[in-house]
């Protein structure tokens, strides 16, 4: 496949590195030096010029390309390039990188005609939340701006807990677990006290998939997939694994876009977030935009502050300041004060190793994460597919219902029970977890869980 990449920065070169073996790549950038450095390392054609110019796009061969990847650091260039590309060659798929989450929302509302919009900030935030995430979960993913969460759990048989019996903490946990088992596990689903705003999407028992009808029950040893609100995901986690310690208190250093995006995602999950930001203006903005987070206007580097505000009581700390060196220093300092888990956002790809060698638990590079997301899409550019679970056995789709869909107006209780399930509806930007009497309305965005082989049927029905 021919691929046109606009932008030869970190994201662009990572994408080229991953794709140049299999694909025929042309890279466009304004910076000649960056291009020649790229051309030296990889087998790719290069073109100096503005990616948001029709002439340059034509010259790069957009008509024959199967995919356009617009990943400069400037949102407007990327969007304009994708618009021109769609005009010149409607068949060419387009991927747009953005730093503004608003464009992501616009794309989710199907107002931006491209196949994928990737926000570095959002991807990084999601990566952090997956690291801190839901205890005991095998895999988690969030949709609809973090309002809908999909979690995969292994249901323990409870033996592990019973082995620890005798210790007071384990005793209490065992009781809680027994309660969970009493009310949920082993009971037919229609009688089980399932946490509100959640649904069991699938039960995997060995090699077979059990469609979770009302008369089925979750048994110990099953693997289950849950769709629900972030609070419901936590509730499930308490039922499945009462002893695992939950991360309830996170400190974020830096209230830039990545810091704020991370704060938003974590707050949505019911985690207490504290933000430390030295710049007063940015601190004010953080306090305005994430009202439930606690914002400190401080460097966060002096011991007196760390002691007084009990920063060391946090179970995890995220470092999202602009300066890698500052992140490194602050992370080490906070770690010294006893924060068990530190995650640093690293801007220079080469520093990732430095950070992890130096004892920071995880170092994330937003550009690498973004590039990975783009590469994943380039390998398998099926539209609307958002996440795969259990290898590629299940998919979670995020689809806007067509106005002519036959399912419109049918109460959920009357929808056929097959391997596919509508876990949540996003209506006017708010997630709704449907009950039996709810109906689909035109313009609803639905989060659908389905077996991969049923994807075409589901897409057709909606």
């Amino acid at each position, binding site marked *: 496949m021919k691929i046109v990449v606009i932008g030869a920065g970190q994201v662009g070169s990572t994408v080229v590195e991953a794709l140049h073996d299999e694909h025929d790549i042309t890279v466009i950038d304004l910076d000649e030096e960056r291009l020649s450095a790229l051309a030296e390392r990889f087998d790719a054609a290069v073109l100096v010029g503005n990616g948001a110019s029709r002439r340059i796009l034509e010259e790069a061969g957009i008509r024959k390309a199967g995919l356009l990847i617009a990943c400069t650091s400037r949102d407007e260039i990327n969007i304009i390039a994708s618009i021109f590309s769609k005009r010149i060659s409607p068949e060419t798929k387009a991927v747009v990188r953005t730093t503004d989450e608003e464009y992501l929302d616009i794309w989710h509302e199907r107002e931006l005609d491209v196949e994928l919009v990737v926000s570095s900030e959002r991807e990084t935030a999601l990566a952090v939340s997956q690291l801190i995430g839901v205890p005991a979960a095998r895999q988690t993913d969030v949709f609809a701006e973090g309002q809908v969460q999909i979690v995969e759990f292994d249901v323990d048989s409870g033996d592990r807990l019973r082995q620890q019996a005798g210790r007071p903490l384990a005793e209490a946990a065992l009781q809680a677990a027994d309660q969970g088992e009493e009310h949920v596990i082993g009971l037919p689903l229609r009688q089980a006290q399932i946490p509100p705003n959640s649904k069991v999407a699938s039960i995997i028992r060995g090699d077979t998939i059990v469609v979770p009808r009302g008369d089925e029950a979750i048994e110990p040893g099953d693997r289950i997939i849950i769709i629900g609100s972030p609070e419901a995901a936590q509730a499930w986690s308490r039922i499945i694994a009462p002893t695992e310690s939950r991360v309830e208190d996170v400190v974020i250093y830096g209230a830039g876009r990545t810091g704020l995006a991370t704060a938003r995602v974590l707050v949505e999950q019911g985690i207490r977030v504290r933000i430390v930001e030295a710049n007063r203006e940015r601190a004010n903005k953080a*306090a*305005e935009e994430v009202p439930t987070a606690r914002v400190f206007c401080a460097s966060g580097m002096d011991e007196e502050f760390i002691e007084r*505000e009990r920063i060391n009581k946090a179970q995890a700390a995220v470092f999202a300041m602009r300066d890698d060196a500052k992140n490194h220093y602050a992370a080490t300092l906070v770690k010294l004060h006893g924060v068990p888990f530190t995650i640093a956002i690293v801007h220079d790809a080469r520093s990732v190793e430095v950070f992890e060698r130096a004892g920071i638990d995880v170092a994330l590079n937003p550009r690498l994460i973004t590039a990975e997301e783009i590469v994943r899409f380039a390998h398998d550019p099926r539209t609307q597919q958002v996440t795969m679970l259990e290898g590629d056995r299940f998919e979670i789709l995020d689809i806007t219902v067509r106005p002519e869909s036959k399912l419109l107006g049918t109460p959920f209780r009357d929808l056929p029970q097959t391997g596919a399930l509508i876990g949540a509806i996003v209506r006017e930007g708010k997630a709704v977890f449907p009950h039996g009497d709810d109906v689909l309305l035109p313009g609803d965005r639905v989060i659908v869980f389905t077996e991969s082989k049923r994807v075409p049927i589901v897409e057709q029905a909606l």
Partner: protein
Amino acid sequence: MRPRLGVDLAATFNLVGGLVKYLSLAPLIPAAVATGYGESPAPFLLATAIGFFCGWTMERLSYGKKQVGMREGFLVVSLTWLLAAMVGALPYWLTAEAQFASPVDSYFEAMSGFTTTGATIVTDIEALPHGLAMWRQLTQWFGGMGIIVLALAVLPRLRVGGRQLLETELPGPEIQEMTLRIRETAQRLWLLYIALTALMIVVLSVIAWTGLDATMSFYEAVAHALTTLPTGGFSTRARSLEEFGAASQWAIAFFMVVAGANFALLYRAFFRRQPRVFVRDEEFRLYLVLLMLGAALLAVELLSEGVLRGEAAVRHSVVNAVSVMTTTGYASADFNEWPLLAAIVIVALMFVGGSAGSTSGSVKVVRHLLLGRILRRELDQTVHPEVVARIHFNRRAVDERIVRAVSSFVLLYVGVFAAGTLLLVMDAARVDSGIGLLDAVAVSASALGNVGPALGVAGPMGSYETFSSLSKGLLIVLMWIGRLEIIPVAIILTRGYWRV
């Protein structure tokens, strides 16, 4: 040499004169009513003539192509309300009615009317001729939505520079910026106001015609609708709502609750069919909670002391709590005779007020809500000096300027209330009128909050007639300041306002 003045007085007088000129047409309505009942319309026609002439003269003397700016706005609004009450006082004074013998009494009654206070110096309301009684109700109706808001809605000359005037007169802090053109805003507010008044007349008339309440009649329905929606509280009866049946009392209580709600919300709920705005609005929710809390406290007190029982206890608790908190000032029972604890609840409710953007007076629910959040933040920042926090209202950060304005408003409000109380007590001691401290507290809070009735001689079934002229003057000032929410008057009292 003349001192250099930073305020354009000519433009101010020109505009105020124009407003007075148009306002003086209002007594033509009671003139028609008087004629209809076979009474002499002369006092009203004379009032119109005098008012129109004075306004016209003021306008003429300061003739010029001068436009008021934001700075003159405060003076325009303050003066307009003082002069409007003078025009309003003319019909009382010109009628050969013994109860309005003194000009201070007439001015008091008119100021109480326009500011929708509802305090009265009349002892025998039933003796008033129909025209005059209707004029009393009408002053409240005009004052409720605001004289200037009305002018903005109908007078083309105020199109420019009117925003400041509107914001100065509308009650409550401007948290949500108005996005509409001011003329449109003013027209919408008046349209809704008229619609709600009409609806209430219909409801009360139905109660009258179905015989649910023998005392209610079409005349009473109109009279009470005219003073319920502006949260005014003038009644045609000396014993206020006590003489009406339970059905009327419940209906009036309902409309008082409506009148104390934010008109912007009401507009969206009724004309845009978005009833969910009520659920989403933090102020409205707190407003309802406080109303219920006030009524519940009264009910518990009344029931446990055995003053009233059964439905009557609940009804009188609800009606009077709603009436006082929304600063309407009707009474369905003489709460003056209730136990002390109930009286204290009543006084406390006087400080609550209705919602911002309603016709009610006093501090208003949103300011209490914000003040609570401001204090919490202040305490929090004492322990955690680095904490940066914004005050949120309805999920949006409130501008820090408004945060400061709310704090200073409440401070000024309490200050003016305390000063008013002290002066009343001192004057009471001077003339030996026997008004005690608690009575003075209630009277001061009632006048400043535009409530109306207070405790003691000024209780819901009493009148302010026995107060000395000095005290009446003080109360006129308190009502005036309270209606304009203190700040405009406070501003024109600063030196910085007048200097270049």
